[in-house]
C-alpha cells in the first residue's frame, strides 16, 4: 500500500522538454515564475498563459497528469480567489452587510487564479520531465558559486541524491516488515490514534536498524571506490548547453520582452 505514494513524479519520455539541460530548465522555471507575478494587465497575463500552455503542450506528458497536480491545490485556489473578490477598492458592484464586490476585486481574483494555475503547471512540468538525479545534479552545478561562502555544495547534492535514491528502497522495506509483523498477528488497522502509533513500533525499529545498516554499507562501498568528496571529481554525464537549450532561453527572453512591453503600453488592470 505504501507503493501508491508517488514520490519524485518523474515520467520518462522523449519530448523536447525532457531533452533540455536540467540547469536551463531550473533557471527558466525561475524566470517564468517571476514573469507570472510581473503581469499587471490582461494582455501580459494572456501572453504568459499562452507561453505556459505552449511549454506544456511540448512536454510530451499526458494532460491528465497536469490536472492531477492541479487537483491537490484546488481548495487553495478557491479560497484565495474568494478572498480577493472582497478585497478590491473602488465602486462596489454588489454590496451586502460588510461585504462589497468591486470590479477590481473580480480582476484580482482572476489574476490570482490564473497565476497560481500557471505556477503549478510550469513547476509540475519541471518535476515531470526531469529525473531526480538530473535535478540534484543541476542544483549542484547551479549552487557552485556558493562555495565561496564555504557551503559544501557537493555534499549537500550528494545527500539529496542518496536520499532520493533510497526512498523506493525504504518503502519496499517497510512493506516487507509490515507484512512480517502482520504475520505475527500485529494489528495495525484498528484502535485509536495512540494505539495505532504504538502498533508502529515493531515496524519502525527494524526499519531504522536497516536504514543504519544500509548507511554503513553504503559508506564502506563509497570508501572502497575512493570517494572523498567533490574535489577533483569528474562526471560521467557532463551537462552541456545545446542548440535546443539556447533556443529555449531565447524563447523565454522573447516572452520577457513581450511581458515588459505589454506592461508599459497597456494600462494596468490591478
Amino acid at each position, binding site marked *: 500500500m505504501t507503493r501508491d505514494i508517488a514520490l519524485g513524479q518523474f515520467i520518462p519520455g522523449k519530448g523536447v522538454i525532457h531533452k533540455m539541460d536540467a540547469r536551463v530548465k531550473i533557471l527558466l522555471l525561475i524566470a517564468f515564475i517571476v514573469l507570472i507575478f510581473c503581469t499587471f494587465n490582461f494582455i501580459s497575463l494572456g501572453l504568459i498563459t499562452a507561453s505556459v500552455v505552449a511549454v506544456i503542450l511540448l512536454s510530451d506528458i499526458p494532460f491528465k497528469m497536469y490536472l492531477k497536480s492541479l487537483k491537490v491545490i484546488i481548495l487553495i485556489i478557491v479560497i484565495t480567489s474568494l478572498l480577493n473578490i472582497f478585497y478590491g477598492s473602488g465602486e462596489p458592484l454588489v454590496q451586502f452587510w460588510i461585504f462589497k464586490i468591486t470590479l477590481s476585486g473580480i480582476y484580482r481574483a482572476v489574476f490570482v487564479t490564473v497565476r497560481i494555475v500557471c505556477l503549478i503547471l510550469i513547476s509540475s512540468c519541471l518535476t515531470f520531465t526531469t529525473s531526480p538525479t538530473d535535478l540534484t545534479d543541476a542544483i549542484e552545478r547551479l549552487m557552485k558559486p556558493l562555495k565561496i561562502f564555504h557551503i559544501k555544495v557537493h555534499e549537500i547534492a550528494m545527500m539529496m541524491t542518496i536520499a532520493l535514491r533510497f526512498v523506493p528502497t525504504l518503502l519496499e*522495506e517497510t512493506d516487507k516488515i509490515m507484512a*512480517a509483523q502482520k*504475520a505475527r498477528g*500485529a494489528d495495525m488497522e484498528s484502535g485509536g490514534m495512540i494505539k495505532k502509533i504504538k502498533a508502529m513500533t515493531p515496524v519502525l*525499529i527494524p526499519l531504522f536498524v536497516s536504514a543504519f545498516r544500509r548507511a554503513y554499507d553504503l559508506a564502506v562501498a563509497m570508501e572502497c571506490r575512493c570517494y572523498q568528496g567533490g574535489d577533483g571529481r569528474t562526471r560521467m554525464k557532463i551537462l552541456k548547453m545545446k542548440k535546443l537549450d539556447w533556443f529555449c532561453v531565447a524563447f523565454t527572453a522573447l516572452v520577457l520582452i513581450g511581458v515588459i512591453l505589454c506592461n508599459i503600453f497597456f494600462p494596468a488592470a490591478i
Partner: protein
Amino acid sequence: MSIIEVKNLSFVYGIDTPFEKKAVEDVSLSVDEGEVIGLIGHTGSGKSTFVQMLNGLIKPTSGQVLLAGRDIWEKPKEIRNIRFKVGMVFQYPEYQLFDDTVYKDISFGPRNKGYSEKEIDEKVRNAARFVGLSERLLKESPFDLSGGEKRRAAIAGIIAMDPDVLVLDEPTAGLDPKGKNLLLAQIMQYHKQRKNTIFIVSHSMEDISRIADRVMVMNKGRLEMLDTPRNIFAQVEKIESMGLRVPQITKIMMTLKERGVNLPDGILTVEQAFFEVVNLLKKEGKI
C-alpha cells in the same frame, strides 16, 4: 484429512494498470495434515505470492484457500486469526526483530494471539528450545546476537504462536553449510514432535529432496508439477527447462546410468547413492 485446500487460486498484480502481471495462475492442490511440502521454482515464478495467500497477507484475485474446510476470507475482519493458524516465516526474518530482549521479541506473536502470561512463558521457552536458542540468550538484545542466532530467534517468534501450518520462505538462505544443516534438522525435529503441516520454499534441491514428502514445482505462476521428490527429480529435462536443477548427486547417478552403469532411477541423497553403488559393486564381485 486435508488441512489446506487451494482451489483455482490466482493473483494479478496491478490490475487495470499498464504493469498488470499475473503472479499466480489457477493453482489447485490439497495438503494433508502433517505433510511437508517443498516448493521450488525459478525467481519470479510466484512462490512468494502463493505462500502469502495461504495466511491471508495477500487477498487472491480469484479462487479460494480453505483451511480445515473453511474459506479463510469468509470473514475478512477476522483474517488476523488465520495468521495465528498459518505461521509464516519470511525470507531473512531476522530483519523483523524489534524488541529489547529476545524473550520479548519471541513473545510478540503469542501475546497478539491472546495467550495468558503463563502460556506465553511456556510457548516462548518451548519455541526457543526447538530452534536451539539457549536460556541465556533469551535475556540478550536481539541486535547483539550472531546472524544465525537472529534467524533462530525470528523463527522461534513464529513457532511460539503454535501454528497448525508453518510456512518457511527460504529459511536457510545466507547461512553457512553447518548452520543450514542444523537449522533444517531442528525444523524436522520440531515437525516430528508437533506433527504439523509445513510448507518450505527453497532454492536448495538437496534440502528439498531430503525433507519434503511432496514437491510443488511452480513456473510462471502455474503449478507445473506436484509429486514425491523421487518422481519429480527423475524428470531432469523438464526440471532443467524451467531453470531449475536436480540435486547434484541425482545428476551424477543419472550420468553414470546413461553411460551403462546399472543404477536405479531417483537417487536423491548421498547416503542413498553410497548404498546403491556399494550394492552394485558387491553384486559384480568387485568388493
